[in-house]
């Protein structure tokens, strides 16, 4: 069965600074990987996804993520954060046929300070 680990429960970053949120996955085959963002009281919004091809994927709101098979990682990055980026970020992995479920990590809460 697949699993996702987000080692950082809470990260605080200054506005304008760079950001990296970590995600490690466990899955035997090629995973489908996602990053979602959730603002307080809101639903889940997809930031970006990786299925195959270029290991550096671009998403919305200036986010990008890099798939590294050798490290089983799919870290999310942004060169310069904005106060509106404060939210909860979830990494997720989708399994293959026979294990076709979408599993979320525990999330990382991002706080932005002026």
């Amino acid at each position, binding site marked *: 069965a697949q699993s996702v680990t987000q080692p950082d429960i809470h990260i605080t970053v200054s506005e304008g600074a760079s950001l990296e949120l970590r995600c490690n996955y466990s899955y035997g085959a090629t995973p489908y990987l996602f990053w979602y963002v959730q603002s307080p009281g809101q639903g889940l919004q*997809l930031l970006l996804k990786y299925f195959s091809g270029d290991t550096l994927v671009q998403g919305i709101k200036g986010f990008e993520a890099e798939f590294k098979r050798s490290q089983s990682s799919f870290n999310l990055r942004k060169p310069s954060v904005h106060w509106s980026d404060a939210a909860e970020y979830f990494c997720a992995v*989708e399994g293959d046929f026979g294990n*076709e*479920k*979408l*599993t979320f990590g525990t*999330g990382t809460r991002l706080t932005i300070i002026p």
Partner: protein
Amino acid sequence: DAMVIQNPRYQVTQFGKPVTLSCSQTLNHNVMYWYQQKSSQAPKLLFHYYDKDFNNEADTPDNFQSRRPNTSFCFLDIRSPGLGDAAMYLCATSRIRQGIEAFFGQGTRLTVV
């Protein structure tokens, strides 16, 4: 246009009184998921359907049941809600391994009184 619709958005039920949450989709996706999300926690998968095949997570309480009468609709039944079942319930749909992401509904916030 909303593609995954959950009704109602807010549900208040009495302790022990059965309640049903509904989810409909216009995407013709073959996978439908139900997640429970409590405050400041990650969505927790309760079960999912792959077409008509029902897949229950091992730690989903027996108090939670689901029905999928057709491709478009899926229901979550809580037979005897307890205070601990108060949460946001999220429905999502997907076409597995076809290069698209899961689409989420707005959720139903369940309050148990």
